């Protein structure tokens, strides 16, 4: 464990003794970090360790309570994100921050549009530059399409394009890959490597350790807001890294228990939503974990939404325990024992302005009731139970969820749905943005639930997760189910083949 | 009273309204001093009511009493007006002069005031008779209605289509005048004149403006417009003077000389009429003080002297008429300033 040395090239950007508190929460305590040109630097730590806060401090979003930001060795004060941008720092924030009403091209170039004479915007140049960026990232997104309605993954891609759109000296990425599938991640890494080779300094955050090992050279670890170590990744193992992060050894990441599936709990027949997915049929049995894999935009989320009743289905039927569900009525789906952990936790999973307690309580409005009135005691103990069970890290249960770190927010969403005691649980990207330690816990939990007879449908873009956890893997491609692969035959190759439409 | 399982209008008719209690009038009683007289116009900041209330203030001061003016800022805020009646009651004014936004809405509050020994005079716009002691009317409604038709008839040579541009549809006094206008038009000498429409500009400059436009578009042969409201006539005059109809379509009605001077001079308007609002206010004030001094009680037939304005007799239902309105035209308009 060595502190960054004074030899070698000078750091472009450095933090010295940074501290930052939010009210009583001390998110960062005396943290230092140096970013060197031509190097990809990883930032690791559990959920709530302070990674995003650190990044926001670098980007001028937060003003540190103490400490300095050094740019080319000179102390600077960023008064806002604009200052940081002008200094050549590009940032991809953990949560996509797009303008839903504006086109993708405008989203990417907002604030720095190409100009014509008289400082007028050059719309054509903006459009062309966007097309070029999309090509570089290997995705098809119409630059003129409004950002509203983009899937989380596509939003993340626009964010990436935004950061790449100017020749940044420093590129900071807060979990850019959380919503992406492997192929997009590979593309992204290609671009990042190219930038690195051109001399940019990159700071990269991910909870997928293999990604850190793949692209980064050095790593800084944070724990509870404190700096633990900055060191080269060479010679480190994943276990070493996890130990630095969590301070202890890690349990198994995919603790799948073997179970014998029971009778069919969820039965989906010929489900169709025009223009989105067609003729989707599958069963999930009690005790079974079924993985639903596919490329971004394959329609997995849409299937889950239609099954749960958020969107109306155009054709087909859904049965839970043999009971047909009403079309477009989540309340009846819930009553039948269905639960859906949605992919977009900020918009769909949580009411950001509400307390942790009430967010978890929201799914229990029908049960924590006495004589028609809310039973506050019951509500609190129900929420507390689950918050504790999932080890949500919070100061007070009455704090609003927007003060939680991303991973802890995800745990609250899980808590909210597990508290309903579902018979069938659909989880859409359940571990997106969750640290390894917690991920193992979530997996253990899902596994335990299955063992207790719950039918689980797991949508995930994290292929190892699917392979590690699922008894059976369903694969979607362009709105259709293309394959059903039993656990024993499921490999990255077979799944990817089906997901890309190359017949399995 | 629950015949047929409910209380209906028929049942109420038999209830009968309790008339205002009337003591005995003493015509020779001394005029009291040091009284508080509250003026409550339909709307403060309204130039018409401001001149009326100024007239009232002058008279009250002259008689050695205290004057105050309160009122809502909107002419349709009936609830506001009611709460001002309540306020005056709380402050134990001796008399109040009220121009009622609504004939019924102020009743409960006014009766409450009378119960507290406060004399209530209405002016300009009346309430139901049992809710006040006396009503000072700006001119007899009949006079106003008929003379306006006569004025216009002369200007258009007793021939052609005419229209009326009134204030709000609910404005009590306007509606009474319009009834008399219609009645006057029944006279055979107006057989060639035809009232084609009554439009409502809600005493709002812009709406009156657009209503005038609408009238002219709908009735291209329109010869004349009567607007028995100061806001309406002014807006109509402004529209006409800026349009091709200037001088061709005649306009008359109720307006103040200051508002209308320009249009009379530029030929848009030949003649219009109005009573002197200051005189109206003065008479209301003097009536209020006479009531408070016990010189009158508001019964029909009682008489009292209103200072320099001379002697007035109380008519049916406690109504006191100010007198005939003045007609203004290019010859005399410069002699007036209100």
């Amino acid at each position, binding site marked *: 464990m060595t502190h960054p040395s004074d030899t070698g090239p000078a750091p472009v950007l450095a933090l010295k003794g940074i501290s930052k*508190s939010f009210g009583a929460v001390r998110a960062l305590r005396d943290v230092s970090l140096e970013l060197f040109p031509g190097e990809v630097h990883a930032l690791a730590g559990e959920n709530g360790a302070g990674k995003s806060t650190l990044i926001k401090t670098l980007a001028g979003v937060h003003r540190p309570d103490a400490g300095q930001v050094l740019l080319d060795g000179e102390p600077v004060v960023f008064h806002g994100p604009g200052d940081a941008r002008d200094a050549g720092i590009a940032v991809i924030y953990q949560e996509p921050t797009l303008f839903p009403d504006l086109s993708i091209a405008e989203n990417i170039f907002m604030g720095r549009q190409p100009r014509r004479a008289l400082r007028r915007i050059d719309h054509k140049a903006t459009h062309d530059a966007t097309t070029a960026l999309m090509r570089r990232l290997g995705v098809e997104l119409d630059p003129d399409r409004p950002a509203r309605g983009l899937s989380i993954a596509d939003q993340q891609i626009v964010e990436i394009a935004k950061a790449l759109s100017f020749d940044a000296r420093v590129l900071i990425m807060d979990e850019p890959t959380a919503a992406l599938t492997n192929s997009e991640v590979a593309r992204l890494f290609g671009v990042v490597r190219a930038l690195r080779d051109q001399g940019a300094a990159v700071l990269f955050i991910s909870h997928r350790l293999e990604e850190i090992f793949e692209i980064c050279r050095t790593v800084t670890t944070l724990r509870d807001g404190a700096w633990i170590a900055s060191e080269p990744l060479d010679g480190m193992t994943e276990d070493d890294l996890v130990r630095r992060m969590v301070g202890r050894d890690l349990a198994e990441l995919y603790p799948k228990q073997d179970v014998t599936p029971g009778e069919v709990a969820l039965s989906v027949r010929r489900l169709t939503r025009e223009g989105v997915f067609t003729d989707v049929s599958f069963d999930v049995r009690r005790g079974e974990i079924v993985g639903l894999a596919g490329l971004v935009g394959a329609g997995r989320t849409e299937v889950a939404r239609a099954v749960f009743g958020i969107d109306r289905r155009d054709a087909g039927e859904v049965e839970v325990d043999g009971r047909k569900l009403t079309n477009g009525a989540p309340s009846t*789906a819930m009553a039948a024992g269905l639960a859906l952990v949605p992919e977009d936790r900020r918009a769909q999973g949580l009411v950001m302005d509400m307390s942790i307690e009430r967010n978890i309580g929201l799914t229990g409005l029908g049960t924590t009731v006495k004589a028609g*009135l809310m039973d506050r005691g019951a509500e609190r103990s129900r929420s507390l139970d689950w918050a504790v069970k999932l080890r949500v890290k919070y100061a007070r249960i009455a704090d609003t969820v927007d003060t939680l770190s991303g991973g802890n927010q995800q745990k609250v969403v899980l808590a909210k749905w597990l508290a309903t005691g579902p018979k069938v649980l659909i989880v859409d990207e359940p571990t997106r943005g969750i640290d390894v330690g917690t991920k193992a816990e979530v997996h253990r939990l899902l596994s335990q639930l299955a063992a207790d007879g719950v039918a689980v449908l797991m949508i995930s873009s994290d292929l190892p997760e699917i392979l590690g956890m699922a008894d059976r893997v369903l694969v979607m491609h362009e709105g259709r189910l293309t394959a059903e692969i039993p656990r024993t035959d499921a490999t990255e190759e077979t799944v990817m083949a089906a997901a890309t439409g190359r017949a399995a | 009273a629950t015949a047929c399982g409910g209380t209906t209008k028929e049942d*109420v008719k038999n209830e009968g309204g309790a008339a205002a209690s009337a003591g005995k009038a003493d015509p020779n009683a001394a005029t009291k001093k040091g009284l508080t007289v509250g003026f409550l116009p339909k709307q403060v900041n309204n130039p018409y009511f401001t001149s009326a209330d100024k007239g009232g203030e002058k008279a009250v001061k002259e008689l050695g009493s205290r004057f105050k003016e*309160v009122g809502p800022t909107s002419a349709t805020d009936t*609830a506001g007006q*009611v709460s001002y009646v309540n306020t005056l009651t709380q402050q134990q004014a001796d008399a109040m002069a009220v121009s009622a936004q609504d004939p*019924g809405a102020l009743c409960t509050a006014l009766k409450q005031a009378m119960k507290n020994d406060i004399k209530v005079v209405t002016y300009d716009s009346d309430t139901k008779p049992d809710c006040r002691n006396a009503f000072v009317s700006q001119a007899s409604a009949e006079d106003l209605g008929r003379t306006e038709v006569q004025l216009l008839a002369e200007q258009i040579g007793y021939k052609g289509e005419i229209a009326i541009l009134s204030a709000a*549809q609910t404005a009590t006094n306007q509606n009474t005048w319009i009834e008399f206008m219609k009645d006057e038009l029944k006279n055979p000498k107006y057989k060639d004149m035809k009232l084609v429409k009554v439009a409502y500009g809600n005493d709002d400059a812009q709406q009156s403006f657009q209503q005038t436009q609408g009238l002219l578009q709908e009735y291209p042969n329109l010869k004349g417009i009567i607007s028995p409201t100061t806001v309406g006539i002014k807006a109509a005059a402004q529209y006409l003077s800026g349009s091709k109809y200037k001088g061709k379509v005649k306009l008359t009605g109720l307006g103040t000389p200051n508002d209308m001077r320009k249009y009379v001079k530029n030929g848009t308007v030949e003649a219009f009429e109005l009573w002197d609002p200051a005189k109206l206010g003065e008479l209301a004030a003097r009536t209020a003080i006479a009531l408070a001094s016990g010189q009158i009680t508001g019964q029909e037939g009682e008489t009292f002297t209103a200072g320099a304005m001379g002697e007035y007799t109380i008519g049916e239902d406690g109504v006191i008429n100010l007198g005939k309105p003045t007609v203004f035209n290019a010859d005399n308009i410069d002699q007036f300033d209100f």
Partner: protein
Amino acid sequence: MPDSLTRAVRWDTVVGALLVVVLLLSFTTVDGFGNALNLSFLIGNTLPIALIALPMTLLVVSGEIDLSVASTAGLSGAVMGALWNQGMAIETIIPLCLLLGVVCGLVNGLLVTRLGLPSLAVTIGTLAAYRGIAQIVLGSDAVTDFPSAYLDFAAGRIGDTFVPYAFLPFLVLLAIAVVALHATPFGRSLFAIGAGEEAARFAGIRVKRQKLILFTVTGLMSALTGVFWALHYASARYDNATGLELSVVAAVLLGGIDFDGGKGTLGGAVAGVFLLGALQNVMSLKDVSAQSQIVVTGVLLVLSVLGPRVARQIAVARAGRKAATAPDAKTPAPTS
């Protein structure tokens, strides 16, 4: 300590405290304020605003607004007058008027929930439409001859006390509204809808149905207010209660209800209503002109949003200072 402090500076509490202060001051220093008659006037004149403020608070908490309330009240008054003129019994008329209010509310609700239109736009439209229909129904009539038993109930007070008869049913309605918003799953779901509609939908809350219920109840309460208004002022006209929507909105805003939805308490809203009512009463008694009263209302509104903000900043700064000075022994020294 900072906990209870931040909670104490919540704006609805401040409004409540302000109301108490204003009342106490007025009792002691303003002539004619404290007597029973004046207080009954104050309450009676404030009741229409208070009645509508109840459902409006719930609506605003769920992120919607209804500007057509005053027109609905006017319409129900106008219909009441017209039917009365037809000779129908008042006992039949009043339920009919309330039903009409339900229909008005339902129309708003359906337009908002079925077509997904913004409630502000819809209700600006129905504000004009309902008022216009009232005008068609009653024209220039002013109906005043309602049976005196009803008029006395709407305008009278219990004996010589300051309590108007109509205040008692209001208290019952207030209690119902408070329980509905703050103690039932329904109320809880309204907060969720207001703060995050999509998340509420994902939690199985029947967003559209709840909103439809709210709009309908708002229509019903507006119609009730219209009936009360016509009887209280003994006058049914098509333009009854014109402009009342702004007073309601102003009072509710003053009470700390957040127009973005998801925040606020009924206590705050009702305190806001009566604070405005009491201030106006006091200012009138003190001979403050109507024009100056308008300015005071405006200043209060601006303060009502700036106040909590400043309070919050002070609280945050204080908490921050406390955290910064707290010694922290656990901080591991960075190893070199």
